[in-house]
């Protein structure tokens, strides 16, 4: 049951609101240059340290995305000290990223040493060791066993999706740490629309209405 598009015309929008939405998206994803031009165009002011922080965050994010976890950790410690102690899961994810990098570059001895030194504190907690809720140490250590990790059963640990996921979590954690919203408004709006539409179609559409598809909606 799609709403009649003509009904949309009845809803008024405030320009400032739209600006806010766009800005939050840009800030969240560290598009510094774009943000600067946008601000210039719309004529609003932002505090300057905001931009610096964004730059730093951007660098951390991209290091994590590339798999250069050690650099990411270093900078995070600098920028948001204490963040990783609070977020043990995140810390574990980052360390495992580094470990994966070592394994991929076939530096087995280093990887082993790294694992033994860095992972021991995590080894005490069962949830990190066994496959319970998250990727566990056992999964990562298993990469050691294979000469060609890309062909092992654990190959998904090397994928870019995984790195993306870790980088995103890191980003959100840093934002939360600096008292900024960890989700951009744009994201939330889209998520909310999807959920609402799905609920509506479930309630009314027992007779075969298709579930809401964001893609199709964007195309229309």
């Amino acid at each position, binding site marked *: 049951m799609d709403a009649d598009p003509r009904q949309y015309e009845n809803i008024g929008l405030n320009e400032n609101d739209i600006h806010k939405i766009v800005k939050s998206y840009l800030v969240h994803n560290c598009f510094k240059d774009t943000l600067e031009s946008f601000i210039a165009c719309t004529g609003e002011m932002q505090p300057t340290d905001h931009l610096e922080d964004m730059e730093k965050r951007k660098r951390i994010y991209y290091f994590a995305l590339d798999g250069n976890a050690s650099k990411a950790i270093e900078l995070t410690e600098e920028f948001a000290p204490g963040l990783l102690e609070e977020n043990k899961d995140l810390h574990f994810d980052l360390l495992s990223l580094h470990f994966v990098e070592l394994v991929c570059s076939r530096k087995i001895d280093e990887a082993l040493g790294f694992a*033994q030194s860095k*992972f021991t504190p995590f080894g005490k907690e069962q949830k990190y060791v066994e496959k319970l809720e998250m990727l566990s*140490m*056992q999964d990562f*250590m*298993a990469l*050691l*066993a294979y000469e060609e990790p890309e062909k092992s059963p654990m190959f998904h640990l090397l994928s870019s999706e995984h790195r993306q996921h870790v980088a995103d979590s890191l980003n959100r954690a840093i934002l939360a740490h600096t008292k900024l919203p960890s989700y951009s408004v744009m994201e939330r709006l889209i998520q909310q629309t999807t959920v609402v539409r799905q609920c509506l179609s479930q309630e009314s559409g027992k007779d075969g209405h298709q579930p809401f598809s964001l893609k199709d909606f964007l195309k229309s």
Partner: protein
Amino acid sequence: MGGVEDDEPPSKRVKVSSGESGGLSNGISVRDQGSCSISDSMARLLASQEDDEVVGSRGVIKKVELVRIIAEALYSLGYSKTGARLEEESGIPLHSSLVDLFVQQILDGQWDESVTTLHEIDLTDESITKLASFVILEQKFFELLDGGKLMDALKTLRTEIAPLCVNGDRVRELSYVIVSPSQNLLERTSGQESRLKSLKKLLEELQKLLPPTVIIPENRLVHLVEQALDLQRDACRFHNSSVAEMSLLTDHQCGRDRIPCQTLQGYSGLDRPSFQILQEHSDEVWFLQFSHNGKYLASSSGDCLVIIWEVKVNGQVSVRHRLSGHQKPVSYISWSPDDHQLLTCGMEETIRRWDITSGECLQVYEKTGLGFVSCGWAADGKSIFSGVTDKSISMWDLEGKELECWKGQRTVRIADLGITTDGKELITVCKENTILLFNWETKSEKFIEENQNITSFALSEDRKFLLVSLWNEELHLWNIDDCPKLVAKYKGHKRSRYVVRSCFGGLEQSFIASGSEDSQVYIWHRLSGELVLTLAGHTGAVNCVSWNPANPHMLASASDDRTIRIWGLNRLNDDSREMLRRGRRCNIYYCVFASVFFNPLNIFQNQIKFITPITEGTRSTKRIPLVCICFTCYNSTQ
């Protein structure tokens, strides 16, 4: 073959349990590599020719296999010289030389060599080779770790174990072990004896993995013999004593003298024999049941009386209490799980709870306007269940308060109520041909549907089996563990007008007994379904039977002739045994006669006692000078 042996000394056989290897004793022999003699190759040649030879009248036993398992048995028993001699003389080696080499390499800890040998052994299935290699290499891995050679262990893991592509989960665990060696140490202790233990375990695992043609499973012959004994015991129709030590020398067969077949003789203090025909009731006896500990028997009768009998150690049964109070005949009795209390259910009347020690009525359960049809104790003895005339089931606490009531078509007017071991399921007859298994907590229902009307049922002691009596004179045995399944049927007894009850009994409940309207007690062997015995003696329909749970040789039956009979073993008394010893080859039987008109008596004639076997009614008459007319039977073999 003999000539060859004279020339060569028997090749040395090193049995594993010698001192050097420190006490491993499984049946694998090892031949000293060096002295592979001509007789070996001759033997192997001969062996291959004999591959198809069979042994035994049926032609199903292959000679090669038989000799091999005998050899394995000899080694297991510790007779390695004999085992070696057998291998030599028969020309059939226990294991091929490759296998012997393999085992020796394992014992010496030469892992890589053993893996190579493993590949040489022709195992048709490649995955077995891989699994076996995995197990061996795992041992190598742990040994390296124990020796502190971390990188070597990792190398083994990466280059040898992982490429096998089996046991992925175990590979994961192994790599984790490298990272945290402390955990590894906790699980495994080092030291000489644990090394031997792990070697033994390794060999056992390999034995299980490799096909039995390559390595004979340990103790195979013993296992086969045990199987045979099990089969003999199952086939034994009259197996009712735990005494039997089964011998390998003869087939096991119990005589039917181990089943109660004889109305027991008890002795009063004056050495005057009195029969265990209990005549306290003044009307038809409808129901009886032994307590769980077999020390008491409760019976109910058309005279509205319930009698508690005590079963003494010598088998004598005597009255303990007379419980009066019911206005209607009691149709069902239920012993509490601890045997201290009794529930009696009057026919569509009240339920009463009695204390056994004092004989007092502790509680009367009533429901206004309705009557009860059945009763039963909860498994914990703290509450009771009852079937009601309005087809519902109620649950009560001990003080008489109704706790719950399940309405609907739960029970018809059939007095049986059963409760499963976990206490969660109630068993009632909910429709004329359907039994309901009702889980009163989850309200889930399971049904057993019969194609005939059901008259009564009985639960086995382990509550896993249900014996259902049907209108058409059949007993159906159902397995109610999980999904109900029909397991067996028993026929032969007579039932046309009344409710005739049946029960489980005997050692491990391997028998089924039932009353019958032809005044006999019928006993079937449970596993085979065969009718093994009918007990005659009553003069009216036998309504109910109960087998003493604590004494597999005691059975009680209740009859319309107002009596209860206690049945026991057919005993040859000492005198007759003596006569047998004197060489008189005759079977002497006890004589029991019950005639309609005369009281039962026993005849003593000097030292001879006459016994009849109570079986299919073969009788002959013989006149004996006495006061009463009676039937006797004297059987003798010359």
